[in-house]
């Protein structure tokens, strides 16, 4: 049929938009246009699908699209810049759930609802029946894992509770789920029994997702979400097999593969292995608070006096900056310093915040010029020629233990060498440990001065002290 050939050709256009878009999204200059290309690829895919299904009853289709689009827009519009990572986790869970639900809908439509007694394998074919089970399994794991990841990022669930015999439990849940699913689609021709077994598959998969993510600390959630993202792609591909939809197979598989590579890249940036991340137990609960000795603190006024004399300042933002929503305040301080002729730069650690690139997102909200932001490798050697380093709500990424203590949980993680600056100001609420839950000897250094307080308040005070003195 002509329409079949036409839609198949158009689908190729959609795939081209996805591929070129994803490529462009991985380069700073072209990222935004890449995202737009991928979105138009998705729109084209929807149009193609509507052409393919032809004239049908559109009530559910239009209703579903409108409700989904409205909720999606609402979630993004209402989100704060600091919540972006959580939002990504939530959307990812929805995507996984959608793939599982498509597979379940297909199962109900073809096996449970028809009156005849037949197995799914007989109704759909062996390959479709197998991938249907995989889609439900992977999609459900993605859903529960992503929801838990969102709660961990938000801090609703803290710590890294260890689950005894976790690996065995995971294997039992995953293999048990597959066994239930396989029996349902190959062995049972009674629709009610088959349906009950598939529900068992869903429950086992949801539990497997929880067991997978629960013992992993909040700091590692970015890697987990990236991995779950890869899985939601695979779930979509499995759904594509079950529906014999090539476009779904291709797009899903590309996300699955690219997501896996991105996960690997993130692990390298944190100097961790994926296995090490998945074993969990890293971060979360404070393992050793440690006592601090000889810590010096000061107030905004005396800190401002030091800053007035500084020729060069490097600001190191961390999650505390995002949590206190202090991005505008920190830029005000930077502008006040620049007005008096001080060189100001921002040093961005690759894993500062709760997600790689988190700081760039937050600072760009305050319209901090891109030229002021420097990656760790570009700026780390400059601390020794810098008058003042201001650490705002960062902890683990400036902890010298990473270099000196091979037994430390963060050993080997590349850090920003702020201690080499002539003077270090650390803006922090207290001496409490960061995500890795360990003591930070930086706070005891002779050249370190703690500025206790809320990051936004302290930066506002600094900015007003600085600007009042300029006059």
């Amino acid at each position, binding site marked *: 049929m002509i329409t079949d050939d036409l839609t198949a050709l158009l689908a190729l256009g959609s795939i081209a938009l996805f591929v070129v878009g994803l490529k462009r999204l991985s380069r700073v200059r072209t990222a935004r246009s890449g*995202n737009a290309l991928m979105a138009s690829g998705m729109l084209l895919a929807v149009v193609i699908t509507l052409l393919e299904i032809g004239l049908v*009853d559109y009530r559910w289709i239009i209703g579903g699209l409108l409700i989904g689009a409205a909720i*999606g827009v609402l979630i993004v519009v209402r989100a704060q810049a600091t919540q972006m990572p959580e939002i990504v986790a939530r959307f990812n869970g*929805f995507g996984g759930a959608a793939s599982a639900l*498509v597979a379940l809908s297909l199962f109900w439509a073809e096996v449970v609802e028809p009156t005849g007694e037949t197995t799914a394998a007989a109704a759909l074919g062996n390959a479709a029946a197998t991938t249907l089970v995989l889609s439900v399994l992977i999609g459900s794991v993605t859903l529960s894992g992503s929801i838990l990841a969102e709660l961990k990022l938000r801090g609703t669930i803290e710590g890294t509770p260890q689950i005894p015999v976790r690996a065995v439990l995971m294997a039992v849940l995953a293999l048990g789920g597959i066994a239930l699913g396989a029996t349902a689609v190959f062995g049972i021709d009674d629709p009610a029994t088959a349906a009950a077994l598939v529900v068992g598959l869903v429950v086992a998969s949801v539990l497997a997702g929880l067991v997978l993510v629960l013992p992993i600390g909040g700091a590692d959630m970015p890697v987990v979400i990236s991995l779950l993202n890869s899985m939601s792609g695979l*779930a979509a591909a499995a759904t594509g097999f079950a529906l*014999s939809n090539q476009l779904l197979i291709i797009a899903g598989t590309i996300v699955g593969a690219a997501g896996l590579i*991105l996960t690997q890249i993130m692990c390298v940036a944190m100097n961790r292995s994926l296995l090490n991340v998945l074993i969990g137990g890293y971060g979360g609960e404070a393992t050793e608070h440690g006592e601090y000795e000889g810590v010096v603190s000061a107030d905004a006024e005396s800190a401002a006096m030091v800053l007035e004399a500084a020729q060069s300042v490097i600001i190191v933002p961390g999650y505390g900056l995002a949590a206190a929503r202090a991005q505008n305040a920190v830029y005000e301080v930077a502008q006040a310093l620049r007005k008096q002729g001080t060189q100001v730069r921002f040093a961005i650690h690759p894993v500062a915040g709760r997600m790689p690139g988190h700081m760039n997102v937050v600072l760009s909200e305050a319209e901090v010029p891109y030229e002021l932001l420097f990656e760790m490798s570009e700026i780390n050697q400059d601390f020794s020629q810098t008058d003042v380093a201001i650490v705002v709500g960062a902890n683990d990424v400036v902890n010298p233990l990473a270099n000196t203590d091979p037994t430390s949980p963060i050993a080997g993680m590349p850090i920003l060498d702020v201690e080499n600056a002539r003077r270090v100001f650390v803006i922090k609420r207290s001496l409490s440990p960061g995500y890795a839950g360990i003591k930070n000897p930086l706070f005891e250094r002779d050249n370190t001065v703690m500025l206790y307080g809320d990051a936004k308040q302290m930066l506002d005070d600094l900015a007003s002290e600085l600007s009042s003195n300029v006059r």
Partner: protein
Amino acid sequence: MGPLLVSVYVFVLAAFLGFELINKVPPTLHTPLMSGANAMSGVTLIGALTLVTVAAVSASVVLGVLALILATINVVGGFLVTDRMLSTFGGRS
């Protein structure tokens, strides 16, 4: 070559493509790239569309509509949130 084998070919080649597509990514773009790829995984939306083409209400249609809504949230919200992250990034020229 049967249709299943074609699908397997497509799957394997797409996997190679995905592996090669992403090589060096600056840390700045890790989050937006993850977010964009995540929006793309909402492509399962087109699977949901093919399952809700009747007016009647049944378990399969309810599951399909739920899938359609969640996938659309994933797609629309995902591309939007990625654009929001990138909107104020420098280096657009």
